[in-house]
Structures are given as C-alpha cells and as structure tokens.
C-alpha cells in the first residue's frame, strides 16, 4: 500500500528540515500506529502524504501502490484514495457542509470515471453515515466545521472519511478532543471500515485509542526519523515507560 523511503522534507519557505530520513512500509489492510513526542514530525508527515505544498521533499520518495505520488497535487492524491483526518480541522465560513460533501464525493467519482451521485442517493449515504457516528443532522446544515466543538470537528472528519471511502486513511490525533463515548463511537466507525484493501496510519499519543483500534504495527517517530518499530505491545511499553528509554537506545 504505502512505502516511505528515506524521506527528507523541510519547510518550503524557511528551509528548516523536519523529516530526516523516514522509512516506513504499510501493507494492504494493515493498521500502523505512529507515536512520538510533541514536535517530532508526525503531523508534518501526514501533511506531506496529503500533498501540502508548504513542505518540500528534498530526498527520498513516497510510493503508493508502487508509484510515486510526489508529483500529484492534493486533489489527485485524494481521488486516488489518500485521506487525511486533520489534527486541527479547518473552519470554512460560507461553504455549506452538504455542498462541500457532495462536491468532494462527486469530484472524486468524476476523477475515477464514475457516474456522479444523484441528490437522493447522496442524502441517503450522508444520513446513514451520520447516524452511525451519532452526528446530529442539524450540525450538517451549518457551514463547514464552523462553530463545531473540538470533538464534533473530529467526528465530522471521520464522517468525511466514511463517505469518501479512501484506501489509505491517515488519522492525525483523531482521539484528542473526543470524550470517552465519542472515542468508542469513532473507533467503531474506523473498525467498520477496516478491510484487506484499506490501510490506516493512526497517529496518537495514547494507548486508549489503540485499545479500541488494535494496531498491527507501532512505530516511534522522533526528531524526524522512525527510531523503533514493533507490534501492539510497543505502545503498551511506551504507556508504562515513556519515551526516555527508547530514545536512549536509539542515540
């Protein structure tokens, strides 16, 4: 599914290097968790996967289903199946949530050569997915994310993910801001999407999410590099011991 090879990246306009040789492979159907201290480059990695041009890749490559995506713009990557659930979803005043959802779904369908969704079909899908995630239909009448609470924004990200049916789901701290019940609802939603042809990159600081979404692999990103990889037990170890030990070993 995803092969990140010796990825170096820096902030485009000021040159600070943030990723310093990331190597990571995620197989089809795999759930990979990424953990790491604040500022280690997790969100940066997720933005670069989604194609944000504030960052410049200086070395290495990102292969998605065997092909480099570095030359593709964010919309092309999305249409090919890459989805990023933002750590801080943006509020976009004036853009109605429903208009946005329909435009996005149909733009992706169009890019893939599929027929556009008609309104009744679209409405049915949105209603079903919103009910699943316990999202109030009233909320979707508002402009995109405007006035949504922190937790509502995170749930809305997962709603978008469920509707767009991506192949590679990058989730950047989706658990932060969610209450305990919401965490369970979102995790159920994610688990329902798990399949042999869909992979997940789950960025989190907490073991709690990984109790619900059990990862196949766990990776520690530190100062722009993966310094340790393991299975789900690695997350448990971090929960108990913190990062100190592992950082020490890597040094």
């Amino acid at each position, binding site marked *: 599914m995803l092969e990140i090879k010796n990825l170096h990246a820096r902030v485009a306009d000021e040159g600070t290097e943030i990723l310093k040789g990331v190597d990571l492979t995620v197989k089809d159907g795999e759930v990979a968790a990424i953990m790491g201290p604040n500022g280690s480059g997790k969100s940066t990695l997720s933005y670069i996967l*989604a*194609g*944000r*041009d*504030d960052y410049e890749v200086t070395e290495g490559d990102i292969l998605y289903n065997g092909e480099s995506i570095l030359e593709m*713009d*964010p*919309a092309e*990557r*999305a*249409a090919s199946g890459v*989805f*990023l659930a*933002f750590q801080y*979803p*943006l509020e*976009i*005043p*004036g*853009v109605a949530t429903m*208009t*946005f959802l329909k*435009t*996005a779904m149909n*733009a*992706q369908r169009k*890019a893939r050569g599929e027929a556009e969704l008609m309104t009744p079909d679209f409405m049915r899908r949105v209603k079903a997915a919103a009910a699943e995630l316990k999202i109030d239909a009233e909320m979707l009448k508002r*402009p995109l994310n405007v006035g949504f609470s922190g937790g509502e924004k995170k749930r809305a990200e997962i709603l*978008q993910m469920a509707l*767009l049916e991506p192949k590679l789901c990058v989730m950047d701290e989706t658990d932060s801001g969610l209450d305990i019940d919401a965490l369970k609802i979102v995790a159920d939603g994610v688990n329902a999407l798990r399949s042999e042809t869909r992979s997940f990159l789950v960025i989190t600081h907490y073991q709690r999410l990984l109790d619900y979404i059990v990862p196949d692999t766990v990776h520690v990103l530190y100062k722009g590099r993966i310094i340790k990889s393991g299975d789900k037990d690695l997350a448990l170890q971090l929960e108990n011991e913190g990062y100190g030990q592992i950082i020490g070993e890597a040094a």
Partner: protein
Amino acid sequence: MSVTELRPRTPADTALVSLAEAAGSGEDARRAAIEALRREGLPHRRIEAWHYTDLRNLMGRRLGGNQLIEAVAAREFPQTGTVLAPLVAGSTVVDLDAPERASAPQGVTIAATDDLADWHESPNHLDRPVDTVRLVSAAFGARAATITVAGKAELAAPIELRGGIGAPSHSAVRVSVGDGATATFVERVEGGGSPAPSSAVSHLSIGDGAEVLWVIDQAKDEGAAHLGQLNVSVGANATFKLFLLNAGGQLVRQEVHAVTAGEGSEIIMRGVNLLEKDQHVDVTTTLRHTHPNTTATETFRNVLMGGHGVFQGMIKVSREAQKTDAKMACNTLLLSEDGDFSAKPELEIFADDVQCGHGATAGEINQDHLFYLMSRGIPAPQAKALLVKAFVDEMVEELEIDAALGEALTGKIDAWLEQSH
C-alpha cells in the same frame, strides 16, 4: 467664489456640457444646472471626495475626440432591444421615464413630477459645495418620479425601478415609505454602451417602524459609465437594509448617504463588487448617526480579477447620538495581480458612549482553506471557485432576505464568477 472660475476647462468638461445641452435644454432650473456644470466642471483628485475616482481624468479618456463628436451627432443613443425580465417574478415594474404607466399595487401611489435633483445640497461633506452626481442628473434633465407607500402597507412583491434601460439615461426617484410599512425596492441599472455617463439619483424616506430593503443591481454593459446616488433617511425604530451589487460597467460610482431620523433606527448594508480588467468601480458611503440608540453594520466584499476598486466609507456620530453601535468592513479578494483596491474607512465621533469600528482587509485565497478542500479531492479551480463564492454569498445570507430574491442575487453573482474564470 473666484477660485472656481480659474479652474481650467478640459475637453471632458466641455464634452459633458455639450452632451447635456444636446440632450435638450428647456426651463430655467435645467439651464442653471448646465451653467453650474460648465462653471464647476468635473471633480478631480484634489477634491477629497473624488480623490480615488478622478472623474475629470477618467471621463476625459471616454469623452475625448471622435467618440464625443459621434455621440453628440447621434444625439439619441441606440437602445438595446432586449426586454428585461424582472429580477424577481411578480415584481411591480416602474419605468422611471414613464412612471404613470406603472400599475401600482394597493397602498402605493406612483406619479411623475418636474423636479430635478437638488445639487446645491451636498450630502458628502468632502465633496464640493455642489453635488456632482446630482448636478449631472439635473443638467441632463432627469425628473423625479415619486412613489409613496402608505403607512402599515405590507408589499408582497418588490417594486422594480428602471431608468431608461438601454440608452445612457438619467433617472431620479423620490420614495417615501409610511410608518410601519414593509417594502422592497430593486433598482436595475443596466445597458448603456455610450461614452456619456448615465445617472440615477434616489431619495428614500423611511417612516417610523417601517422596514425597507433596497437592492441596487448594477450590471451595465462593458463600456458604460454610471453615476448613482441613494439618499436615505431612516425613521425611529425603522430598519433600512441595502444590498448593492456591482457586476458591470467600465466607470461606476455609487454613493449611498444614509442618516438616522429617529431613535432606535437600524441600518444594515451589504455589498459585493465584482471587478474585471479595465473597470473602475467606486462605492462611497456616508452614515450619519444623529439620534441615540441607533445601529449600523456595513460590509462590502470585493473580488478582483483586475481593474481598480474604491471603497470610501464614512461613519459620523453626532454628539447627541449616544449608544450608537456602528461597524464597517471592507474585504477584498485579489485573484489577479492586475487588480488593485483602495479602501478608505473613516470614523468621526462626537458622542462619548458609542461602539464604532472599522476594518479593511485585502488578500489572496486562504491557502489553508484551499488545501483542506483539495485534500478531499476537489480540484484546485473548483475549490477556488467554492471559496470565492462563499466569500461573497455571505453578504446575501447575512441580510436574511426573501429566498427568491436571495437566489436571484446569488444567481447573478454565480453567473459573473463562472464567466470570468
């Protein structure tokens, strides 16, 4: 004053006077206006109210040389033959050149008068002792139609005002809305591909507790010039809502001068200016708060693919107008490096217990918003279009007006956005 006599005449000044004379002379009032126009000439950048719209210079480019001779020789300018559908179905259409032909709905009287605009009174203190827009109106002989809406009347459909669409026309109207009445007026400003300017001068007097929505839908032809002025007085506890759309013309100045006429009045002004290459569009407003407890919000959003936009907004709060709450904003989205926008918001406050503020911003499309939309698979051009539309559609939404009228306005905006991509 002797200073005015020393002002040099330019070909544009002379041309405008010749055009006014060619359009017919007549009685004393008309001749006095033509004389004043000859004496005062067109305003230029050193007149503060016209600093960003140097009419003498900008008109000079239109009225110099052959174009003028042709225009004067032709005398009558070609009418475009299109029959215009009303902006909202079911509207009462009033042709301001022949107001007596309109079929007035119940509670409304419509009549023709011989009144010319009063150019001695200057609604903008930064202008000259003569008011330029009114002077042009009077010199070209625009006679005011009068429309009276009876107290408590609730008009179901808009009254659509048209001033000789298709030719450079000069129209004037005096509207008076009685206490407690509700009415919507739509001013259609269209047509006119001649070098001479058209003008529209409106006076609106809103009675106590009445609610009036006034829409100016300016979609002049590509080469047209237009001078518009709306003067409003807002009665006690009355509401005045304005929507101004500028989506056409080559040289356009629209002035709005509003004054409170009682306590508790509310002014809500929203506007959208859409500019392309070679256009010069100026919106100049003055809000005068002269009574306690009045509120005003004024927001203009501008989208520039090119051209030069101007916003001058003045809020004046007099000493007795305590508890005035007035906000003004002008936000510009620059979609091309060729466009530029001059914003000049001003506050002049003499009361001590007020809340007033203004802000002007100009920038490009928000890159974070663009990335977010694209990350959901929406291609860049479509994502940009969504963001631009959101930026301007908010102005229509914020007015909370009738759905059919709201849709008609966003439809006009959409059409512009689509065609200018």
